[in-house]
């Protein structure tokens, strides 16, 4: 792998980690969400370099187009708009930082010192393989995942509906007054 691919790799890595650090420290939750977007995009870039094109597109589609939108909606709906500033309070900063740094050191040491039997990967389109495996070898997990998604969808819809009993009660109380 020559110059440009390495350059792209380091750029994607820097974007991923830098944006993740911003997510961790930014006081404004909306800025943190935008930083998260860049982190996701960086991870997608890493996937592309790792010959996981389908996964990269999925990463963008699901994380950016789905989860991040949900996060933004949650931020908008759970903060009073009149507040203007969306605060994001933190606590236990020092001990958490210490734990994380130690953990990072341990993990990196483990990653660097372990001798892996590295085989050079090959660049091939993976979409067909993933589709075939999902329909043959991993059919059961696939079906379970779809049932889980359906359950999650119904659960989320049920949870976020306005409480009908409570609202009826409220109306009755208002009527009494």
């Amino acid at each position: 792998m020559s110059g440009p691919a390495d350059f792209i790799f380091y750029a994607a890595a820097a974007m991923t980690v830098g944006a993740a650090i911003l997510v961790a420290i930014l006081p404004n939750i909306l800025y943190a969400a935008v930083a998260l977007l860049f982190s996701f995009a960086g991870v997608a870039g890493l996937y592309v370099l790792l010959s996981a094109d389908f996964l990269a597109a999925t990463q963008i589609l699901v994380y950016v187009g789905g989860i991040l939108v949900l996060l933004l909606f949650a931020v908008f709906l759970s903060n009073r708009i009149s507040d203007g500033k969306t605060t994001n309070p933190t606590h236990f900063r020092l001990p958490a930082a210490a734990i994380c740094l130690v953990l990072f050191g341990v993990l990196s040491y483990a990653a660097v010192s372990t001798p892996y039997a590295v085989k050079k990967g090959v660049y091939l389109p993976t979409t067909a393989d993933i589709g075939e495996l999902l329909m043959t070898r991993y059919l059961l997990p696939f079906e379970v995942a779809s049932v889980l998604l359906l359950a999650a969808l119904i659960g989320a819809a049920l949870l976020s509906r306005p409480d009908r009993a409570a609202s009826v009660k409220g109306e009755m109380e208002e009527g009494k007054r």
Partner: protein
Amino acid sequence: MEALAISLVNAVPLLAGVPLWTVTLLLMVAVAAVILVFALTFEGVGSLVLRKVAGDIQARIGPNRVGPNGMLQFLADGVKLVLKEDIIPANADRLLFKLAPYFVFVGSFAAFVVVPFGVGLIAADLNIGIYYVMAVTSLVVIGVLLAGWASNNKWALLGGMRAAAQIVSYEIPVGMALIPAVLIAGSLSLQDIVRSQGGLLGIFGWNLFHNPFTFFSFFLYFTAAQAETNQTPFDLPEAESELVSGYNVEYSGIRFGLFFLAEFGDMFIVAALATACFLGGWNVPFFHVGTLPWIWGNLLSLGVFLTKAFAMVLIMMWVRWTLPRLRVDQLMRMSWKYLVPLTFVNLLGVSLWLLVFRGKGIPGMIASLFG
């Protein structure tokens, strides 16, 4: 792109000393610039045509003052957009306010990369073409949401929330309606999909006429895509009469211009996808483009593709100036109660058809009857 770079280095001896990746990178930049110029030109001319069509349909004339017959109106508009003062509201979130238009523009423009303009005219023939388009256009949602929030304006926020809900809802029918084309071609690459519709069947080789389900699929896709790009009658996010102008109400100058360009870019992407997936792409009826010399084949296929795509854009404009705007609940009902179930039924139907008839469409079967 690398193959092109290699052939370029071979053709021009002057480039022999330059590292290959530099040439490749420069080529990438050049191709991106060409596409950007095309997109901008289309968006400019598109805005003019849109206003002309609106004028015709509403028994008016439309712009006719700048240049001969109003032809240069889009240049005047462009100059106006660029030169206007870029106002940022006092209480706006400055960073996000500045950032949001770029998300929208990038999300719209990045999709141009995989549009198959001709036999060999495609910036990057990704093997996940359609999926890639679906993925990058989701950036638009984020941009619109952030623009709505950062403007610190209730109309902008409502418009942004509406736009996000609408785009996310309609992404599902759009994807589901495109899958029949993917199933028939057996590939997500747009070039493969276009190639699968070639052959000597002429226009009956198109996916549109492959079987009844694909025929309906085309119209479902077109409806859903029109909603996904916030075109009238689904332009609730920018409903002028209730939300002033929705998420871009506080924007002016070049930042508004980016939203504006992204809107037209989305229009072209929708038309191009419809062309590539259902209308045969750059295939010339009853003729094999590949037999021509490289340059003539490409020019011919480019012309055919653009003709089809522009025809689709015109139909979008026609619909746009015909139908009145929906209500929000009607919009959501249309997506979740009508389009989503129908596209799923269609998908099942196409799958069954392909299974039962071994991938052959009706015209193909009729043709095989006659040998």
